[in-house]
């Protein structure tokens, strides 16, 4: 091997940049260089980021409707901040706790400054930080995967401005945090310097992603593929083993936590990691996604309601890249994201349980492959089979076709996205929640001694109103499912004062005897909103007199 010798003692020069042997490295369309040093990349990225942040941030607290899960995670983050352990009820290994530990860190300063701001609506602002980082990482990743600047910008826009993204990324979901870590893992795996410790870092980031939301596990093969393609043959075995080791060792910390707490395996009188995994693995399936009438079909329709361009266009883009694998440099460069889309699509087709936020983890990859597919098409239209002596007319035809394609796509996408995002920045979906919280804060005489069942989204509001966290203001399903709560209710629903019947509570009460009884033995004293989405505050009849 020919090369020069390393730098030497005495002289303060950094290690000489010796060209690595060419063999085994992937062909590049652009030479690796630092994005930070490129003014045009920086300007484009900052401008797009500003647009995304305005659209995502405007009206973030009022739209979409507060979700039960957001309340769960934020309340647990609150419990971490307050030093109450990993959750204010018994932590039962439903998810690894790293997600809300990060949330706790992220919201720590505002929570210190204004404790009452620790509610779902106001803390959604924290998700803007995550969205911003993720959007920038999408751009960086696109550039590292050799997409041209405009295509990277397109990917960032698709990721940040699709109405589906706007709705889902506003919400306090663990998936959004996990997506950020996954994107970081991809970016490090595709590091242009091919540095051993960057790849090691990719393993760490991948583990962080999985510990934030365990479903990210299935995307890891795509990270590995990206790393494999971007590492050099001479150092690959160290890089890849290092990354895998880092990922595994950090991942092991979760079972280790359970082991240290004596909760690894099931046993009488305590929760266990084993039980938690068993619960998640045996959740009842929600049917085949393409069969009308199943739960999964409903979830799919709810995604497509917000946006069709990104999910369907992304899948088409992935398909295009897979088909043109042989001929297209772009297709090979985007192997990682395309594989991620393929894996996630395959998993969605499995007739298992399909949560509504499932699509979040696919969003960046859908955006990247759609942008990549667009770049491929653009190249095919403008450059392929083009000779230097090409006829003028033909060249003009190429441009005409390109302009027509751009015009047609814009005509389809812009009005739909405009409508979707206008709703997002103007609609107020959470007035009933706010009103219900107000009512319970002002109309109830002695909050400290009142016991009320609420869904998770309202829980923190009531804590700030002076209700006792945990046993005073109660996550409604804990009244049936948590022995530590039920034992404080020896007379069942008679030991409660109010139940706040939100859509979630009404839906789940069917399977929860105590909650159902509380609903049946109560009458509404205040109702906010109308129809399916209304929130009723119901006073339980037996309460008061004989307590």
């Amino acid at each position, binding site marked *: *091997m*020919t*090369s*020069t*010798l*390393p*730098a*030497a*003692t*005495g*002289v*303060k020069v950094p*290690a*000489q*940049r*010796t*060209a*690595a*042997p060419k063999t085994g*490295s992937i062909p590049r369309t652009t030479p690796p260089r630092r994005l930070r040093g490129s003014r045009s990349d920086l300007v484009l990225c900052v401008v797009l980021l500003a647009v995304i942040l305005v659209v995502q941030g405007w009206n973030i607290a009022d739209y979409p409707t507060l979700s039960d899960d957001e309340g769960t995670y934020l309340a647990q983050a609150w419990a971490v901040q307050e030093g109450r352990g990993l959750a204010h009820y018994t932590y039962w290994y439903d998810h690894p706790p790293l997600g809300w530990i990060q949330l706790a860190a992220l919201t720590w300063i505002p929570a210190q400054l204004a404790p009452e701001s620790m509610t779902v609506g106001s803390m959604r602002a924290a998700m803007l930080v995550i969205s911003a980082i993720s959007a920038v990482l999408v751009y960086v990743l696109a550039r590292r995967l050799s997409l041209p600047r405009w295509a990277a910008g397109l990917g960032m826009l698709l990721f940040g401005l699709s109405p589906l993204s706007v709705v889902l990324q506003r919400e306090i979901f663990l998936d959004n945090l996990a997506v950020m870590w996954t994107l970081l893992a991809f970016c490090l795996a595709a590091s242009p*310097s*091919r*540095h*051993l*410790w960057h790849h090691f870092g990719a393993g760490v980031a991948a583990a962080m992603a999985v510990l934030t939301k365990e479903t990210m596990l299935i995307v890891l093969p795509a990270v590995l593929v990206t790393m494999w393609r971007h590492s*050099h043959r*001479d*150092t690959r*075995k*160290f*890089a890849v*083993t*290092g990354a895998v*080791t*880092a990922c595994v*060792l950090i991942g092991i*910390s979760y079972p*280790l*936590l359970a082991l*240290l*707490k004596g909760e690894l395996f099931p046993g009488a009188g305590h929760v266990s990691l084993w039980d938690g995994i068993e619960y998640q693995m045996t959740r009842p399936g929600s049917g085949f996604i393409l069969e009308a009438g199943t739960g999964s079909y409903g979830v799919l329709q709810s995604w497509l309601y917000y946006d069709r361009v990104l999910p369907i266009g992304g899948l088409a883009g992935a398909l295009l890249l897979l088909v043109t694998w042989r001929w297209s440099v772009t297709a090979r460069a985007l192997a990682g994201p395309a594989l991620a889309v393929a894996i996630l699509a395959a998993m969605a087709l499995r007739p298992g349980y399909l949560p509504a936020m499932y699509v979040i983890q696919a969003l960046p990859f859908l955006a990247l492959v759609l942008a990549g597919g667009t770049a491929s098409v653009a190249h095919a239209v403008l450059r392929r089979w083009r000779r230097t002596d090409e006829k003028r007319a033909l060249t003009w035809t190429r441009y005409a076709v390109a302009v027509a394609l751009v015009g047609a796509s814009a005509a389809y996408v812009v009005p739909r996205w405009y409508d979707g995002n206008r709703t997002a920045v103007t609609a107020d979906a959470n007035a009933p929640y706010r009103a219900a919280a107000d009512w319970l804060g002002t109309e109830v005489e002695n909050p400290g001694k009142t016991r009320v069942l609420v869904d998770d989204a309202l829980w923190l509001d009531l804590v700030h109103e002076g209700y006792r966290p945990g046993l005073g203001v109660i996550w409604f399903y804990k009244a049936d499912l948590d022995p530590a709560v039920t034992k404080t209710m020896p007379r069942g629903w008679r030991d409660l004062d109010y139940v706040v019947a939100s859509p979630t509570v009404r839906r789940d009460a069917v399977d929860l005897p105590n909650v159902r009884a509380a609903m049946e033995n109560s009458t509404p004293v205040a109702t906010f909103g109308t129809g399916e989405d209304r929130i009723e505050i119901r006073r339980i009849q037996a309460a008061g007199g004989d307590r």
Partner: protein
Amino acid sequence: MLTSVFIAVVSLALFWMAAFTLWWQMHAWRTPEVLASTRFSRPDGDEHVSFSLLLPARHEQAVLDHTIQRLLESTHTDFEIIVIVGHDDPETTEVARKAADRDPRVRVVVDTHEKKNKPKAMNTALPHCRGDVVGVFDAEDQVHPELLAHVDHAFRATGADVVQGGVQLINYHSSWYSLRNCLEYFFWFRSRLHLHAQKGFIPLGGNTVFVRTKVLREADGWDPNCLAEDCDLGVRLSSVGKKVVVAYDSDMVTREETPGSLMSLLKQRTRWNQGFLQVYRKRDWKQLPTFGQRLLARYTLMTPYLQAVSGVIIPLNVAIALFLDVPVGVAFITFLPAVTALVTFVFEVVGLHDFGRQYGLRVRFVHYLKLIVGGPFYQVLLAGAAVRAVWREQRGRNDWELTSHVGAHLAHVNREDVPA
């Protein structure tokens, strides 16, 4: 509470130590470009540097002739071999004289010191050197015929004062400890030493090291009282800003074998450790210009002791985390050093694979197994050597004649002159 704080502090200190060591150990594989830069560049066919190759030999009549023959096969056109023999060692002298009679490039220098050691022998030969560059080899080394041409080119291309070539133990299959010993050399010469060259602080190896004769004479040669005269020379030269270049090519390394028994390995290691300690106390490294360099020097020279301590504390730490009632957070921290140790383990396994590839050796599953299982025991050996070295240094037993009372081991004296 106090226990928790104490455990956390110790664990974090160990973690950083292990992490830095790992970071440096993996230096050569950081990027493909760094890896490429650790190799010799191809000679341009031009030759301007003349060599004086020192070959100290003591009771090594069995291997000496073969080594001389192999050196004479070198493709370089301008070199002399100076065999240094003791006045009390007629057998080796005989072999050396015969070789000198056969080829005018071979000369013999007789060392008449009462108490003999390698630095004294080489200092004896230094005034006789005619070449521009002095090179050092051991009597049982297998030297590649093209090495000198590459070193010549390296001197000219980089303007270096010192060129250190690679040394590699090869007999990984001999025993469990030789496997680990080989791998230590692999990581040291393949990777870590390049980092030292780059940072400007380098403990040189005992052979396949080339120094400009003028520089060596200015530095008064080797320190006859130091047990690690090779390390000492490197530290002294780099401390005054001499340019050191390291190059490693798997087909250009000097091949050696591990010590023949566990006991001689322990003795060898004891001597190096004691030597490192002596170099540390000589304080030449204090002249290094930057704080970072001095820190690296301090750390490197003290490594054997840190190694000994961490070898004992890491398992203890894990046991504490598992069996004592400490908070979960603290328990997590106690696992950090173990995690780094595990990462190091994994990289060693990959390193063994790479070693096999580089040298065209068939590394089997059982070798990987030996590597892993042998790890803790090797750690015990290293810790033992470190403790022994401190003990000897404290008792003032800093004589070179570590093995002088065991006549049968004299043949190993030279063999041990390589760094770790």
